[in-house]
């Protein structure tokens, strides 16, 4: 039981972080960023290159991942999303753009970082073994802690900083924010960069545990979508809740349903569909029409 809880918290923390960036971008621009997973993968590869290959300190690599993705995110928003949103008759057209960017990033990752699974040396050694009730390697505990710390820091940033408040105003009501004197274009870019940066940060954190390969992008995006839906699209607290719920569902499902094997995820997906059919706005989302 304790093990299931610990697994759930660990999974939940990493999922929540992935979902945060996605939901932020969705809240700000109503864009479902199909390329989120690819951004996560790039973050992982940057950390791999700097920490694993060049041997620089881990923290430097992590920062480099954040910066790379923030810049990439800002560029993508400024030169691709912003003009397309302005010129498109239906805002869903951005989905095609997002998918195109996902393909592009996939192609670049393949050309730059190659097709192999990559991993970095462990950042901490050893395994916590509490009487065989909880077994958890120290590096996981550390990454879990860092993830939770980042989530708290992000919430604090959104709550108390000037930029964060402007972003929240923007997410709530674009027109109203504009009337209040928020520079909408500028903050859209900042928000997108921030969302991308979060993806890069998770990539940099998780590469130490799971390693990274170019195939992780697409599935990660889809998982992130599901978490965002569970919690409610475009709601920060919802993304966190969604991440932890999916994390716990997996941990519990795998523990309880393991003797039925193949159906664990079928059960998770079907219950997700039933949940969404009953409560379409997710746990904390605003009802959609």
């Amino acid at each position, binding site marked *: 039981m304790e093990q299931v809880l610990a697994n759930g918290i660990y*999974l939940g923390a990493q999922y929540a972080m992935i979902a945060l960036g996605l939901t932020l971008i969705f809240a700000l621009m109503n864009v479902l960023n199909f390329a989120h997973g690819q951004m996560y993968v790039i973050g992982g590869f940057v950390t791999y290159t700097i920490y694993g290959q060049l041997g620089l300190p881990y923290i430097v690599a992590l920062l480099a991942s954040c910066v790379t993705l923030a810049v990439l995110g800002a560029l993508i928003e400024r030169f691709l999303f912003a003009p397309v949103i302005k010129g498109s008759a239906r805002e869903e057209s951005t989905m095609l753009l997002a998918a195109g960017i996902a393909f592009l990033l996939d192609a670049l990752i393949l050309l730059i970082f190659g097709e192999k699974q990559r991993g970095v040396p462990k950042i901490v050694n050893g395994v916590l073994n509490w009487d065989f009730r909880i077994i958890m390697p120290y590096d996981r505990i550390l990454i879990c802690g860092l993830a939770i710390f980042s989530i708290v820091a992000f919430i604090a940033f959104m709550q108390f900083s000037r930029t964060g408040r402007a972003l929240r105003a923007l997410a709530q009501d674009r027109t109203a924010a504009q009337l209040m004197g928020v520079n909408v274009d500028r903050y859209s870019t900042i928000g997108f960069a921030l969302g991308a940066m979060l993806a890069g940060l998770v990539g940099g954190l998780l590469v130490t545990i799971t390693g990274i*390969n170019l195939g*992780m992008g697409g599935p*990660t995006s889809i998982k992130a979508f599901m978490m965002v839906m569970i919690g409610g699209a475009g709601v920060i607290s919802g993304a966190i809740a969604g991440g932890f719920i999916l994390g716990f569902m997996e941990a519990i499902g795998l523990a309880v349903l393991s003797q039925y*094997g193949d159906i664990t995820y079928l059960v998770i997906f079907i219950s997700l569909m039933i949940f969404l059919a009953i409560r379409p706005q997710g746990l904390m989302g605003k009802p959609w029409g």
Partner: protein
Amino acid sequence: MKRRTLVKSALAATALVALQSTAVFAGNPVLKIGFVGVTSGPAAAWGISNQRSMETRAAWINETGGYKIGNTTYDIKIVSFDDQKDPKRSIAGMDKMAQEGIHYVVGPNTDDGAEAVRPVAEANGIMYFPYAFSKSLYTPPASNAVLAMVANYQSGPAIYKYLKEKKGVKTVAFVAANESDPLSQRTSGVAAAKALGLKVVSDNVTYQPDTTDFTPVLTPVIRQRPDLLVLSGVSPAHAPQLIRSARELGYQGLISTETAQDAQVLREGAGDLANGFISVGGASTPELASDAMKEFVKRYTKMFGEYNDESNTKVYALEYILATLAANPKAINDVKEFQKTMDTFEAPNPFMKGNAKLTYVGTTSFTQKRQIAVPLVVNTFENGAFKTLFVATVD
């Protein structure tokens, strides 16, 4: 107006690229060999190691004057098609090969792709060499597919038998990704283990291909304390994580798989925890590699920056095609001739020390010779590199 011109010029550029004729080699006539497989997306590693080993070998042949088939010396050109692991695209790829007049194709990499291209290959007279285990591909009435590696239902029993006799393994547990190929491999693995009298303590735990944390997946399996944990059809990306999770959960027994792995990936992903991990490989371990194999690895590394141990098994398909054509030059445009030759074909294996032979096998599994006799080399991972555990043959 401006955007119209832009789109038009983009389209024109596309058309140009499409019509651009293939590069011409100087001198020798060109023999085209095809590759249809996945070289982008999540499973890119499978196809890329394949494609690259073919290109390395082709470049090597061309550099040393070409390959002599009958009275003609050919330069070898590899034509690749990325099917994105989508059976619909695999068919398109096989059609492209037919279009290019190619009769010998390596790939596809998965069961569904290999099965989907069968009608095209048989209609167009193409022999193809998939990395897929589905028996119906190779058993009559199927005629044109040749299994290009050792199937897990062949390597599995050998490995389990060895471990049962030499390491005293009595109980075994299976874990597989919830996808066609790994599940099929698990099913045949379980059957093989039972046939040997091993006790299967867990055979229904699966994980999604997008899993990032394997601890919850493995927890119930490890609790059964099997002597051997089999990772059925595990992809190179998942192997180190599964090993790491199992060891961190305190698992002490053996871990094995029947697919090829890459030492570098294991080293990075699991480090010392991967010591003792048993996998199937080619003949590149120092004990077995011939000078040709060493040369191949060197050239591959030079061409692409980094070697991939999966290529150890994937270097063979092209070699078989060429050697069989050399044995019967009539087969170059006629796969019926090729099929005839397969029954009697024999040539020395250039990649392995000693007097190993290239032959076609598979009678036991498929009732006809539709498999290349890759040496079944079982490796164990020790301190960052593979060591040969034992070598067996397939019939």
